[in-house]
């Protein structure tokens, strides 16, 4: 299993948060709103593409619409392998947090 970079982790989570509407623009918005940081749209496209190549995301085309110049939206979903990678990463982070008295304030 290749290592997972931080921005890749965030993008995977943002795809899951976007649910059925997980196309690039929506994922970008989720990333910006939830992390409260500016995110470059180009980075999102590139990372989505890379995650597809790694097999952690799958993509499928929606219906074309005239507002998009007759082009279809590309929707993304986390694959089983992607979920496995996420799980591994989150477990690792949990283990790192274990017993540490730094309580998040949420």
């Amino acid at each position, binding site marked *: 299993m290749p290592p997972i970079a931080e921005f890749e982790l965030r993008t995977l989570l943002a795809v899951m948060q976007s649910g059925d509407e997980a196309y690039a*623009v929506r994922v970008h918005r989720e990333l910006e709103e939830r992390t409260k940081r500016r995110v470059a*749209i*180009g*980075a999102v*496209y*590139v990372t989505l593409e890379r995650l597809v190549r790694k097999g952690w995301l799958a993509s499928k085309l929606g219906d074309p619409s005239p*507002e*998009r*110049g007759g082009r279809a939206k590309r929707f993304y979903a986390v694959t089983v392998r992607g979920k496995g990678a996420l799980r591994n990463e989150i477990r690792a982070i949990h283990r790192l947090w274990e017993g540490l008295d730094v309580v998040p304030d949420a």
Partner: protein
Amino acid sequence: MSARPVSRWATALLRRLLTAEQFDEVMGDLTGRVHDTGGAHWRASRVTLVVVSSVVWHTVRESLRQRRARSSRGGAWLPSPRGVRLAVRRWKARPALVTSAIVTLALGLVATTAMFSILDTVVLRAAPWSEPDRLYNVYVVRPHWQHDPVLSSSWNRGGLSWTSFQDIPKHATTISGFGVWRSDRQTLGGSQAELVHLMMVNAGLFPMLGVVPAQGRFFTPEEDESVSDSVIISSETWRSRFGGRADIVGYSVLLNERPFRIIGVLPPGFRFGAVERAEFLRPLGLTPTSQRTEGNHFLQATVRLAPGVSVDAATRDLEPWVRGSELPERKQTTMVSHVEEEVGSSRRPLVTLLVAAMLLLLIATSNVGALLMGDTEARRHEFAVRMSLGGGPWQLRGQLAVEAAVLVVGAAIVAVVLTVWTLPALIRLAPVAMPGLDTVSVDGRILGFAALLTCVVAMLLCSMPLWTLGRVRGADGLREGGRSGSLSKSRGFRWIVAGQTALALILVVGAGLLFETVRQTTSVSLGFDADRLAIATVRLPRIAGLTAEERAQRVQSLVDRVASIPGVESAAATSAAPFSNNNSASGIRLPSRPDARPNASRLIVSDQYFAVMGIRPVEGRLFDVTDRPGRFAAVVTQEFERTFMDGHAVGKTFILNDNTHTIIGVVASPKHRGYTEEAWRGFYLLNRQDPSWDLPTVLVRSAGGDPSALLPDLRRAMNAVEPGAAFSFLGTMDTLLARSVADERFRAQLASAFGVLALLLATIGLYGVVTRAVQARTRELGVRLALGARPGAVAVLVFRHALSLGALGIVAGLPAALVASRAIAAFLYGVAPWSPLVITAATAAVLLATLAAALGPAVRASRIDPLRAIRE
């Protein structure tokens, strides 16, 4: 309704950069967002700009990241220890290639580094004073001297008088330092008397230069005026003559038979003004009062401009005090940058030679480049296999670059060792006339320059695989089985080889021109017989106060004594040997023009002089025993006769020092000051009649042997007659002749060395290309032979191929050579920059080299066995 279209440039850019799928996705999203802006044009543009630039930026970054990741798989290609080890191991298996590459590169690097170190020492570090740019030499200009053949050499370089020396510091406001000096040679007393270089300096010279004594003190301003027994010695003299003894200050020395006390030692390497380093320095205060007159312009002067003062302002400020009150209307003042005057004449030849060395290095680099390209080509099969097994092209290129870098570093190490080793030999070859050359050494600056050169060469050679490997594609290499080459036909090789030939032609033409200059210069008729002449110039002790006859008698007894040395044919004395840089001029008065006082060169000779020198009279007679003291006879040159005597001199008179001299004979004008001298306008006096000399030169013609073998006997014989005689020169006429063209010969030798090396390298490069071409065409040539072509015809094919490359180089090189030879036109004499002889010879040399390069491959091609060539 359809969406507002995204601008055309964004579409084009994205389509080029992205895959079709990605393009659709991004375009769709972008169009959607532009639609969401509600049609406001500026907002749509902003969104497009943000999205497109962000996508472009990140896509490029991502692809670079991927390439890096791919390349580093299976071993980094950057100069990792492993890559270097691999390269070293590979080169160990190819000793011949490595040796030729390293030798070639090292030759170029050594030539360039050595030239730079000479330039650096002689030119760049010639004036190690504080703020040397503000130092100016001050001269008196006498425009009316400009066209006088005797005085023209110093018309704008006149010295200052004692009065100027005293007036300038009192009145000038634009200078912050004032140094004056004059050089002299004096007899250093000891077990064997010796003439040494000496400088008389004022106290202001050292503070002006910012020089601090290594030991003791410098002179005080009082010593400028009054007699003192202080002397300062150079650091080199301290070490060589006094063994570097610690108690040197206070030590006593004899100069011109007078005791002096050493008060200080100069810092090492001190050299100022004169070409030859002064060993002893004395204060100006010893100048006799008789010389402290208005009319005696014997002092050299250098000033330091006050901060912010222009040369013009300083010249105007100093002018009245420089001109003085004696005939000021005939004098002007000029100020010349001290640094420029010290190095100006040697800078251009040295820079030119450095450029030549760099051309050589360029040839060497391209040669090694071609060698590496050929090596890469030979390894097509290896690369094809490695690529098929997953080796990335960048990995392979990286490995090639590391291999090249290893070669270059090896060559640099060899070059530095060779430079340290050969520089002293090169400097021994060099003429003494380049001041400071004896201090050339390899130091940090030189090493830095060598390192810089190495980096440039490495960059050139390491970037080579970037484009050579481009042609080796995995599949092709495997399919062809690595047998037939295509690179040998490639344009790259041809241009490299043609370029080398062109550069070599430039260097050969330059060398030829410089060589022809030396040949033309030295082939002029001297007007005397220079063969088998030994020369000794001495200063005789205790000569002051002697009468003319007594002096002549002492010189004559020297001449008589040396004439009796076995192996000596004849001997004579003169006041100055030709080519010894010793010229005296005298103002004479002619009965026909009583108010004019023209100048002519003067030699005082013994009556055997003309016989020894092989000079015969054109008219009249030469000196003989009938010329007695008390009368004044003169022999003049034809140029003298032509200028002053209206073409007929014998029997006429001129007045010198209030004495009427009768012209008894005329000789053809011999060369006296140098080969390139115009006809010498001089006259000869007989030493019995006018012995006003104290530095006689004894000339000896050997009976048949090498005159240099006579030198020890000459010294012994002269010391036996004159125990206190101090030699200022002891050598042969050949030495003097060679010394007078030493600069020109040195340039010609260096340039020829570069030319020969360049030709050799170009030949090797050509040989490689032709060999490879023959290998690649083995099958074709075999077929030709099988179909009945004669072996000679095949060889002609090869020669024709080589000649086409050589001709390409010559066509490219000739115009460049003509431009380059114009650049060295200033160093040429007796030969035009476009000399057909030299250019034809150089072209012929290049063509010959081309044929020589093709000889081996042509023979091999004619011996190809058709059966084997076709079967393979």
